[in-house]
């Protein structure tokens, strides 16, 4: 590793990384692309197959309309041209997970062509060109680690995928990472894909090479294709590794050049964090694409459902909505992004605001209160099933100091088990904030008396004074069972401690 790093800083040499991506996105349909078998993750092996999946003689595929609609929707969001005429082709190769010995794909007439995706990065937004996006069926699954034979499960066979191919516009591992996360956001946001990495619903294949400049002359290294990555982290790590590896290989041998050396297929070894050359086939791939005689063309303009999808205005996309949340509601970028992580949650937030919730307070509650409850129940905030009106009402109570922010957490938890409003619940739980100065003074004095050490710290150690003040405020909240107004408690603590100081002086 150290040798690799040193080589990165060789004087007189500059380089840039050239990256293109192929991304497979599983479309969110109930059934497969060409038959009615259910799509279900981790089902009993070979329990979701039929003559079409198994490639039995005489079986005929029929296109799933929903898969085509979802592909149109994502294609539009990627600013692609949706083809008037798309067709299906057979890509032939032999592998045990492919029982027909061909994959149904789209070769020269893909459904979506020439678009782009804007990707936020450190130097602003970068535009990444999309060359094409086409529909195809997934293959089955081979399991190699059993002794004696390879096991084949054909449940996944025929899963609808959209393969998105970018232009080689990406220039860094970080940008590729951002592209992949942005694409996942977009696909899940538009309900085009569940986008689950755990279930392998997004798979990535970066193509990487370098343009190295030495003494004013540019050299290009051979392109390597890193196969089948299934996490964002692996995409970044694999590209970073490839960048170092290619630079080092070129330094060691200046004839390691595009055109002189073959295109390499490499696999990512996650344990060792390196890419490994895969044994190249004796013969170059020769897929012998030809039109599938079992399937007719897709002509969007001649089908009402498909044309309807094409005409539907594009929904406000996450990037635009995030900016609007910041501008319109004054949210921080982080809070806006957290709320926008799931569309139903973002919709719920906006309905709460419409119902009268102060946006900033509501946003804080989404991030600090509701998301924690949602995590506990392993759901999204929207799936907690709390009505926007009640969510809005709780935010309003915090804004008006009727309950403290910490008491609001208890009220929120109570709202899950009840259909009552937060005001009623706070009353019942005794969490309505007390404005009575006398009572507040009692709590503050009790906290100060019980925590002499913290008081001493405030008096003697200015560096830690803030933390100790915060600690005392927490104690007041605890003693008052959350009924104290933390802001006013803080003021009173400062006053009392200052008083003690005067006494000592």
């Amino acid at each position, binding site marked *: 590793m150290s040798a690799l790093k040193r080589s990165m800083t060789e004087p007189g040499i500059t380089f840039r990384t050239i990256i293109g991506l192929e991304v497979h996105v599983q479309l969110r*349909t*109930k*059934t497969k692309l060409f*038959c*009615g*078998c*259910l799509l279900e993750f981790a089902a*009993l*092996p*070979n*329990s*979701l*197959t*039929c*003559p079409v999946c*198994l490639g039995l003689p005489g079986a005929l595929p*029929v*296109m*799933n*309309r*929903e*898969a*085509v609609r979802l592909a149109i929707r994502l294609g539009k969001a990627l600013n692609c041209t949706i083809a008037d005429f798309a*067709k299906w082709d057979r*890509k*032939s*190769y*032999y*592998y*045990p997970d*492919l029982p027909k010995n061909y994959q149904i794909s789209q070769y020269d*007439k893909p459904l979506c062509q020439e678009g782009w995706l804007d990707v936020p990065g450190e130097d602003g937004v970068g535009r990444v060109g999309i060359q094409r996006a086409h529909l195809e069926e997934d*293959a089955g699954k*081979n*399991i*190699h680690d*059993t002794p*004696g*034979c*390879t*096991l*084949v*499960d*054909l449940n996944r066979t025929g899963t609808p995928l959209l393969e998105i191919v970018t232009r080689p516009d990406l220039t860094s591992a970080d940008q590729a990472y951002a592209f992949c996360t942005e694409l996942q956001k977009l696909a899940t946001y538009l309900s085009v894909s569940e986008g689950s990495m755990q279930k392998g619903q997004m798979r990535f294949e970066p193509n990487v090479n370098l343009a190295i400049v030495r003494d004013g002359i540019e050299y290009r290294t051979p392109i390597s294709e890193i*196969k089948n990555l299934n996490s964002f982290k692996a995409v970044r790590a694999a590209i970073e590794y490839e960048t170092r590896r290619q630079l080092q290989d070129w330094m060691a041998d200046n004839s390691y050049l595009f055109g002189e050396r073959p295109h390499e297929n490499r696999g990512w070894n996650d344990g060792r964090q390196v890419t490994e050359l*895969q044994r190249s*086939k004796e*013969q170059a791939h*020769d*897929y*012998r694409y030809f*039109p599938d005689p079992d*399937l*007719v*063309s*897709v*002509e969007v303009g*001649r*089908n009402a*459902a498909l044309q309807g999808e094409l005409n539907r205005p594009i929904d406000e996309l996450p990037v635009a909505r995030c900016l609007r949340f910041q501008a319109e509601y004054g949210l921080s970028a982080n809070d806006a992004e957290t709320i926008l992580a799931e569309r139903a949650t973002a919709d719920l937030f906006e309905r709460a605001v419409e119902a009268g919730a102060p946006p900033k307070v509501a946003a804080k509650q989404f991030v600090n209160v509701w998301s924690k409850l949602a995590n506990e129940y392993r759901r999204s905030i929207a799936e907690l099933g709390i009505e926007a009106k009640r969510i809005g009402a709780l935010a309003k109570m915090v804004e008006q100091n009727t309950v403290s922010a910490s008491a609001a957490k208890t009220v929120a938890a109570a709202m899950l088990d009840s259909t009552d409003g937060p005001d009623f619940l706070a009353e019942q739980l005794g969490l309505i904030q007390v404005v009575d100065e006398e009572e507040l003074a009692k709590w503050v004095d009790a906290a100060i008396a019980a925590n002499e050490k913290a008081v001493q710290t405030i008096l003697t150690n200015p560096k830690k004074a803030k933390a100790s003040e915060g600690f005392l405020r927490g104690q007041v909240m605890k003693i008052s069972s959350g009924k104290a107004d933390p802001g006013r408690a803080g003021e009173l603590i400062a006053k009392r401690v200052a008083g003690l100081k005067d006494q000592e002086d």
Partner: protein
Amino acid sequence: MTEDCASFFSRKRLEDRLVDTPIDESQVRHVAQLARLKLSDDEIRQHTVDLVAILGYVEQLSELNTDGIAETTHPLPLCNVLRDDEPQPSLTPDQALANAPQKRDTFFGVPKVLNQEGG
């Protein structure tokens, strides 16, 4: 086979066409390899002759003037044959595996794959 067709396939005409044909034995070997067919040298020679004949026959189509005729990818006057996204019953694992030469639990078993890379 029509009269024309028969004369087209006559040995003499085939041999004439072999001279300037793009198909040679190395290509037949390549295609056989892609199709996982094990062919003897004799078979390779025979298939080369046959393929040349077939391609030559089809080549007659190029005599037609197709200017201004739209590309056809399918002979049927149909498009958008689509189905609803509604589940249909699948086969049981037993049915699916009924003809499998080898199985383990409900998996198909196949000879060990060494090159762990698909298409």
